C-alpha cells in the first residue's frame, strides 16, 4: 500500500500553490523582454490568443490527467500516463514529468539562491556607492565563485546549499504543512511587493533621483504596438513559447498537485483561477517594473542594448544600481522587495518541482515523505553543483535549454495527443467537467482535440528547424538555412564549433574548448539521469506485477 497520505489543506491554498507553481522568475524577467522584442503592445494579441487556445486547454488537460491518475493512487506522470494509455511506452514518456523537474530544479534553485543572497546584500547596503559597472562586476564575481563581500568563502555555493536545504525542509513538511503554507504567505507578499514596485515604475519623473526619463517613456517603449509584427511567425512562436513557460505546463507539476484532488471536486474553475492569477502577475505587475524603471534611469538605447542579453542581466546587474538612486533606505526597501518577490516566485515553483519525484517514491517504493524529500534535495545538489561551479562554461544554459525548454514542449505535445486522441476527447471532456463549478464552453472540445496539439507541433517544429535569423519569409521561399538557435544546430554545437574555429586568442580558445567539454558532459549527465528514472519506472512496473497490481 502506498505511503502517500498527502492532502491539500484548502481550496484557496491549492489555487495559490498552483499559481505559485506557475508564477516564476520568467513572469518578471522574460515576459517584458519578449514583449519588447516582438512587437511591443501588439505582442499581447498573439500572447492572449495563445493563452486561450493553448494555455487554458493545457491547464485543463493537466489538471484532469492528474486528478484521473490520483483516483488510482498515482501521483507522478509515469503512472498517471499509464492509467490513460494502454501502451506500455506511455509510462516512459511520463519520465519527462519527473526528469524535467529534477533537472530544472538543479539550476533554478541556483537563481533562487541569487535572489536570497541579493536580499541580504540589499539589507547590508552592499550596492550603496557602486556605479552600474560596479554592480555588474559584483554579479560576475559572485557567479565566478570569486571574492565574497560577506566574508563567507564560496558565498554562491553556501547560498545555493541554504536554498536547497530550505526547499527540502519545506517539502518534508508535506503539501498542506509545507508547500501550501509557503504559497499562502509567499503569493500575497509577492503581489504586495510587485504592486509597490509597479507603483514606483509608474511614477518615475525625469530629473528626480537621477532619473532621465518619465515612466511614460518606458511604458511607451513596452506598449506601443507594432501591428506589422503580427504577420511574423517568429512573434507567434515567441508568444506561444512565453505562454508555455509562464504556466509551467509540460512539466508534470500540475499533474502531481491535481492528483490529490478528488473526482467530485472542481478542477475547471481552479485551473482558470490559478491561470489568470499567473497572467495578472505577468502582464500587470511584470510589465510595470523591469522596463519602465530601467528606461527611466538608463534611457532607451542602453536598455535596448541590455535586453539583448535577457532579463537576468537587467534584474541582477542593473536594478540594484537603480534602486540605490532612491536613497539608502528606500533603495534597500526596494531591493528587498524586488529580490524578495523574485525569491517567492522562485521558491513556490521549485517546491512544486520536488513533488513529482516524492510522489513517485511514495507511491511505488513506499518511501516516507521525509526520506523522499531529502532524496530530492540530495539529487538536486549533485546535479546542480556543476551549474554552480561551471556557470561560465555553459552548464547552466544546457540544463535550461534541454530540460527547461525543449523537454516541456515535447512532453506537452505527447500529453495533448494522449488526452485527446488515445484516452479520447469524450472521456477527457467528462473528466474536465466532473465536479466543475463553471460551464466550460463547448468550443474547447474542438480546441483541445485539434488546435492545441497542432499549435504545439507548430512550436516544436519551429524550434527544431528555426530558419536563419528567424527569417521565415526567406525560408518558406526555398532558402531554408538553419539558425544556430534551432534544436538541430544546438545539438551539433554549431555555434560553439564556429567560435572555436574563429578564435585566435589562446586563452579564449582554451575557454571555448573547455566549454565544449562541459556542454557535452552536461548532456551526458542529463541523459544518464533520464535513463536512471526510466529504470526506476521499470523496477516499479516489475514490482507492481509481482504484487499482482497489473
Amino acid at each position, binding site marked *: 500500500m502506498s505511503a502517500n497520505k498527502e*492532502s*491539500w*489543506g*484548502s*481550496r*484557496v*491554498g*491549492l*489555487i495559490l500553490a498552483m499559481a505559485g507553481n506557475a508564477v516564476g522568475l520568467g513572469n518578471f524577467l522574460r515576459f517584458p523582454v519578449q514583449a519588447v522584442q516582438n512587437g*511591443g*503592445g*501588439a505582442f*499581447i494579441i498573439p500572447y*492572449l490568443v495563445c493563452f486561450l487556445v493553448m494555455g487554458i486547454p493545457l491547464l485543463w488537460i493537466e489538471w484532469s490527467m492528474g486528478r484521473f491518475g490520483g483516483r488510482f493512487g498515482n501521483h507522478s506522470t509515469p503512472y498517471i500516463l499509464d492509467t490513460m494509455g494502454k501502451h506500455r511506452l506511455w509510462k516512459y514518456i511520463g519520465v519527462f514529468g519527473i526528469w524535467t523537474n529534477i533537472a530544472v530544479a538543479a539550476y533554478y534553485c541556483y537563481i533562487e539562491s541569487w535572489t536570497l543572497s541579493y536580499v541580504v546584500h540589499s539589507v547590508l547596503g552592499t550596492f550603496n556607492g557602486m556605479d552600474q559597472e560596479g554592480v555588474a562586476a559584483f554579479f560576475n564575481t559572485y557567479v565566478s565563485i570569486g571574492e565574497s563581500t560577506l566574508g563567507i568563502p564560496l558565498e554562491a555555493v553556501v547560498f545555493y546549499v541554504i536554498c536547497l536545504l530550505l526547499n527540502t525542509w519545506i517539502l518534508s513538511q508535506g503539501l*498542506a504543512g509545507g508547500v501550501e503554507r509557503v504559497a499562502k504567505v509567499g503569493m500575497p507578499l509577492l503581489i504586495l511587493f510587485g504592486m509597490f514596485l509597479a507603483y514606483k515604475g509608474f511614477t518615475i519623473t525625469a530629473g528626480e533621483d537621477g532619473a532621465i526619463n518619465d515612466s*511614460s517613456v518606458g*511604458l*511607451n517603449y*513596452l*506598449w*506601443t*504596438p507594432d501591428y506589422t509584427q503580427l504577420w511574423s511567425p517568429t512573434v507567434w512562436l515567441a508568444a506561444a513559447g512565453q505562454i508555455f513557460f509562464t504556466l509551467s505546463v509540460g512539466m508534470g507539476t500540475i499533474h502531481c498537485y491535481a492528483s*490529490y*484532488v*478528488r473526482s*467530485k*471536486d*472542481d478542477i475547471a*474553475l*481552479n485551473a*482558470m*483561477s490559478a491561470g*489568470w*492569477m499567473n*497572467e*495578472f502577475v505577468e*502582464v*500587470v505587475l511584470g*510589465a510595470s517594473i523591469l522596463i519602465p524603471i530601467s528606461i527611466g534611469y538608463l534611457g532607451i538605447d542602453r536598455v535596448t542594448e541590455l535586453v539583448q542579453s535577457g532579463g537576468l542581466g537587467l534584474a541582477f546587474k542593473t536594478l540594484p544600481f537603480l534602486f540605490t538612486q532612491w536613497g539608502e533606505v528606500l533603495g534597500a526597501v526596494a531591493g528587498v522587495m524586488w529580490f524578495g518577490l523574485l525569491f517567492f516566485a522562485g521558491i513556490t515553483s521549485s517546491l512544486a518541482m520536488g513533488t513529482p519525484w516524492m510522489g513517485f517514491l511514495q507511491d511505488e517504493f513506499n518511501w516516507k515523505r521525509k526520506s523522499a524529500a531529502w532524496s530530492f534535495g540530495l539529487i538536486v545538489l549533485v546535479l546542480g553543483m556543476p551549474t554552480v561551479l561551471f556557470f561560465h562554461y555553459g552548464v547552466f544554459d544546457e540544463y535550461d535549454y534541454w530540460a527547461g525548454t525543449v523537454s516541456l514542449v515535447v512532453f506537452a505535445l505527447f500529453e495533448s495527443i494522449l488526452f485527446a486522441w488515445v484516452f479520447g476527447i469524450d472521456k477527457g471532456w467528462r473528466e474536465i467537467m466532473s*465536479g466543475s*463549478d*463553471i460551464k466550460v464552453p463547448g468550443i474547447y472540445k474542438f480546441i483541445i482535440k485539434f488546435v492545441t496539439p497542432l499549435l504545439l507541433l507548430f512550436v516544436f517544429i519551429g524550434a527544431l528547424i528555426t530558419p536563419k535569423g528567424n527569417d521565415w519569409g526567406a525560408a518558406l521561399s526555398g532558402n531554408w538555412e538553419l539558425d544556430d538557435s534551432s534544436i538541430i544546430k544546438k545539438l551539433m554545437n554549431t555555434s560553439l564549433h564556429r567560435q572555436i574555429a574563429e578564435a585566435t586568442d589562446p586563452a579564449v580558445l582554451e575557454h571555448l574548448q573547455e566549454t565544449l567539454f562541459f556542454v557535452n558532459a552536461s548532456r551526458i549527465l542529463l541523459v544518464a539521469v533520464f535513463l536512471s528514472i526510466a529504470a526506476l519506472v521499470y523496477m516499479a512496473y516489475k514490482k507492481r506485477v509481482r504484487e499482482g497490481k497489473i
Partner: protein
Amino acid sequence: MNTSALVIMLVTMFMVTGLTVYFFYRVLNAPPKPEPDSYLDNDDEPGRQPMA
C-alpha cells in the same frame, strides 16, 4: 504616453485584472462540496460529514 500604447495597456491590464478577480471570486463563493472532499480545512464541520 501615446494614445495607442495607453489604450492597449489599459485594456489589457483591466481585462486581465478583471478576469483574475472574477474567477477568484467564483472560487470563494462556490458552494462547498459535501465531505469527504479533497481538503482538510473543513473536515471537522459536523454538517459536512458523509451520511451514515
